[in-house]
């Protein structure tokens, strides 16, 4: 079967959705299909240019494609008679982020018109889908709440579980993944002001912008945390990244309302590492369970400082939480062969 994965593209930005598409392609091929990714540029600033990009997406003519698997707005607007949605997210600035006052849509009548248009376009696109899956319970709930659409959750599997074998702690809590304000690594750095001197933090991953990197570095300098906070802000190879995970005392991931379980937490769980998260971190909380797989704190530096210290206070308990995270992940039975099978059903 010829399967086209359709996704957005922001040139020179690579994150979870891009990783998901690439691994879906790889696993479709492993399952005996022909698979390719169509990446279409999408830029949400300025908001006035969004309708044109939606129209362009809608105007594409696809042929020689048996199935389409679409991941994101506006990629899922593409026309095809056999289209499956594996929803990473809608245009959240028109939905929950709008309600939260975090939208980039202009205020007043213009913004309302644009929001209404995006929602109508979504409704039309969702009605065209042969099946709808979401990557997490959070995405599923958002889809049900705002679009009245039911969906099944298909959590994206870890792509290379063999790398995440765990290992002896090297004495740091790892904060991994893309670095930006929404991922809130700055909360963890600020928390380090209030932690025990023996607590150490390693922030590792590619910053979305130079400003994101500078902001973290300033915090470290400002609070004189250089001896206990290490910043390795760059794109890491899978080997480098896995070594950081495997050597961590625990793995902290505190984004604001993440859509999915998140690769960082899944890979940490696979490695048997205790998880630290925040109570408003969304889909991540599917794995991060307070007192079961790790710690869930309020999204404030002082509260996070407490749980960072906890990770070092009792290593046996920390390891028990890590084991619990691995068990919970495995109980979810998330693997690529069954995921591919569901998507092509």
């Amino acid at each position: 079967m010829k399967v086209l994965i359709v996704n957005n593209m922001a040139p020179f930005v690579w994150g979870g959705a891009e990783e998901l598409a690439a691994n879906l392609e790889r696993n479709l091929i492993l399952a005996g299909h022909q698979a390719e990714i169509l990446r279409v540029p999408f830029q949400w600033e300025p908001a006035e240019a969004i309708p044109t990009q939606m129209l362009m997406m809608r105007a594409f003519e696809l042929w020689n494609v048996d199935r389409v698997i679409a991941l994101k707005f506006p990629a899922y607007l593409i026309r095809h008679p056999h289209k499956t949605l594996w929803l990473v997210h809608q245009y959240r600035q028109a939905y929950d982020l709008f309600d939260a006052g975090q939208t980039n849509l202009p205020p007043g009548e213009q913004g309302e018109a644009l929001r209404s248009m995006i929602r109508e376009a979504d409704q039309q696109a969702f009605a065209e889908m042969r099946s709808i899956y979401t990557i997490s319970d959070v995405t599923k709930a958002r889809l049900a709440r705002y679009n009245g659409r039911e969906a099944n959750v298909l959590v994206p599997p870890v792509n290379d579980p063999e790398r995440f074998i765990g290992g002896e702690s090297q004495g740091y809590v790892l904060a991994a993944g893309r670095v930006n304000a929404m991922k809130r690594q700055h909360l963890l750095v600020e928390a380090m002001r209030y932690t025990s001197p023996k607590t150490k933090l390693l922030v590792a991953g590619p910053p979305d912008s130079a400003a994101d990197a500078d902001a973290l570095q300033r915090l470290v300098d400002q609070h004189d945390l250089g001896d206990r906070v290490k910043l390795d802000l760059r794109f890491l190879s899978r080997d480098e990244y896995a070594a950081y995970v495997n050597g961590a005392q625990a793995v902290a991931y505190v984004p604001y309302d993440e859509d999915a379980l998140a690769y960082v937490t899944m890979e940490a769980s696979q490695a048997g590492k205790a998880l630290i998260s925040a109570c408003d971190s969304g889909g991540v909380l599917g794995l991060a369970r307070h007192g079961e797989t790790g710690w869930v704190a309020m999204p404030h530096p002082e509260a996070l400082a407490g749980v960072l210290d906890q990770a070092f206070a009792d290593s046996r308990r920390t390891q028990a939480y890590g084991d619990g995270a691995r068990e919970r992940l495995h109980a979810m039975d998330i693997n690529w062969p069954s995921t591919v099978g569901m998507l092509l059903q």
Partner: protein
Amino acid sequence: MNIVIFAPGLKASAIGRMTGLLVRELSAQGHTVVLIRSEEKVLLSAVPQSFSVEVIDWLQTSAVDAACAQADAIVHQIGDNYHYHYGSLEWLSKYPSVVCLHDFYLGNLFFQWAQTHMAEAEQALLHWYGAGSNKKFFEYSHRQDFIELTCAAMPMTEWLCAMASAVITHSSWGIKRVLDSCAGPVRAVPLAYEVPAWDGESAVSNAEAHADGEPFNILTIGNVNANKRAASVIRALAQSEKLRRSAVFRLVGQCDTLKALELSALARNLGVNLVISGPVDDDVLAVIVRGADVVSCLRWPSLEAASASAIEAMLHCKPVVVTNVGFYREIPSDHVVHIDPDNEIDSLCKALEWLHAEPEARLALGRRAQAWASQQFTAAGYCRALLGVVDDMHMAAPILHSMRFFAQALSDWKTDTRWLGTSLALDPIRSLLGTTA
């Protein structure tokens, strides 16, 4: 080129007669033409004029589909007469077509079509003329002054032209509404008209006859209704002692009894010699036209894209008085006498007095008009322009297709398009379409 033309086949239809000219010219140029009669069912049993090409009734669905499928161009000749253009309205939206628009005002056509398409009709009114227009139009339709009430604000030009892939009009005065509604090419092309044999001698003899004290004959041709201004002609003649004594005002064409009584009473009261001849056949009409000293083609309001009676009169070498409005305003001022619509009766009285007093000037005016009209209103010129518009339509087709696609998507998304007027939103689409429109 294979060309399908939808038009009335009846000889009684001026549009049908004009189409006959086109068909002959296109055939002479080597094109294959199929004529599809567009009259409503009850009229299709009447024998059509001889077109010398294959003629199909619009009701013969398979045959029409087959002809259209093979056609390089589909053309609809349409005016404001529902009975004559019923079939065109049935087929127009099914194939991309050129509409040759004979009337800018289409209120009567629309009104009668609306009786069986009320939901679509109301939607069209709301779309083109805004809130409340759907109610107003049909309220006005019960009134005698329906045309006057709707011709400026709701002429329904846009409704028809929006269904066309290209439009040919026969003058420029009402073209803005066409341009606003037809996404494809639009061109103003002079109406094709059959040039009669040179009639200069009869015009001369008629001028001389008048000099010997014969009546001064003023003629108006066509269905007698308020917008042909017969009452104004009577009042203008009454204003002049000389004209009252010497002029005979003849009306040729359908005239209902009430109108005839009303005009007769007015003429009698004002001492004007009025003759109401009713409808006549072509031969009689030719004799009457030849005998006329002046042809009055006054119109208010002006509804036509072009006036067949004015063209015919000019081709017959007759001096013509016209209202300075619409199509008539586009006729050069040394070929007709323009009458000021705001000072109609005085202006007309002066013009008729001058024409009455100056037979040589009358003849010279007629000859200039004839020379101009015989160059202007030709079937060859019309066909040349029509084929050019067909080429333009084919070139525009991909752009129109894209525009329709985008418009449909925006409509499906219930987009408030007022907001899309920014260059940020539209420039990329313009780039894609390769247009600055």
